[in-house]
């Protein structure tokens, strides 16, 4: 695994790339179920990001700055119903603080 001290914006890119590919590719989805550690090794992620994926922590991924148009499909893949998805993001902000990077880091109206 690469050093974890590279800048967060670059890491958010690979985190979103992982989710983007997971959302759309049945082969990646199979590895997600059967070989998660091997799959995660293919992406340049921080330890914290890997932990959030292992924990299925949709709220923390939102706090990391994952775009909702990617995150909502991942939430659906995990079996979260729409309101559960919205609640997971709110809970993420309550637990981990405001969104740290990406588009929503501009948001002032965090609930």
């Amino acid at each position, binding site marked *: 695994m690469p050093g974890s001290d590279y800048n967060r914006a670059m890491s958010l890119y690979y985190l979103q790339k992982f989710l983007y590919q997971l959302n759309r590719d049945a082969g990646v989805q199979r590895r997600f179920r059967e070989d998660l550690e091997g799959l995660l090794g293919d992406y340049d992620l921080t330890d914290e990001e890997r932990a959030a994926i292992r924990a299925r922590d949709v709220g923390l991924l939102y706090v990391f700055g994952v*775009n*909702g148009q*990617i995150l909502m*499909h991942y939430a*659906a893949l995990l079996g979260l119903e729409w309101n559960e998805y919205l609640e997971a*993001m709110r809970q993420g902000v309550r637990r981990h603080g405001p969104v740290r990077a990406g588009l929503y880091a*501009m948001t002032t109206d965090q*609930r």
Partner: protein
Amino acid sequence: MSTVFIGVCSHGPGITGRAGRADPRVRDEFYRSFERMRAALEAARPDALVVVAAEHFANFFMNNMPAFAMGMAQYYDGPIEDEKWLAIQRRRVPGNANLSRRLIGAILSDVDLAYAEEWKFDHGVMVPLHFLTPRYDLPVIPVNINCQGPPLSPLTRAWALGEALRRACDAVPERIAIVATGGISHWPATPDSGKINEAWDREFLRRWSLNERDALVSYTDEETYRDAGQGGFEIRTFVAAAAAGNGAKGEIWFYEPIPIFAVGCTIGVIPVEAVVAG
């Protein structure tokens, strides 16, 4: 003149996927406006429908994000999303690669855009088609404006794209319909999903109806983000449609916030000068 129809509409996935959770009175009125638009579209007897959309990472990702792109395929598959989640069955939608190629060639004189010979439709195209071409028998040509991942093209370039699209459509013998689809103010897929800035929407639609370029392109992205959310970046599609209108004023057939659809639901058209038959 072979542009025969110009319209704008919403495309939120909730419009089909969460239909059962909306106030049926408002929802059905919205659906009736979509139906009215379908009838007007069919009455224009188009040979192809150009859909100007703002996709949500269905085809394009931040590794190689085109500011503008246009489909050049003989068919398109969609929706990319779970069929049950969207409540739209997966299918193959006809395209017209030859027509695409001619339109792209013409547009490139004015605006740089990428072409794509493979393109999967997400809800941003499938929801409009579900209502407007329910038999999926009209060839569709998708155009995408990046409204997801900043940096984004300025509104002046969305306007230029709309003008170039109109010129290109008018230069081909086929009868072309143009439907642009985007949200106005909305915060889709975030904790603020369902929030709608109705006053901002109505002011934007007022400017859109007047079709005055300077008023339409005067929004900065910072203002739009603050007042209309990240979903507000999709006004680029409406701006392109206005530009394609060649100065004609638009008509709003429907506007109503429907929070469970996560957007102020909108149907609008820009009348196109009647074409003399033959």
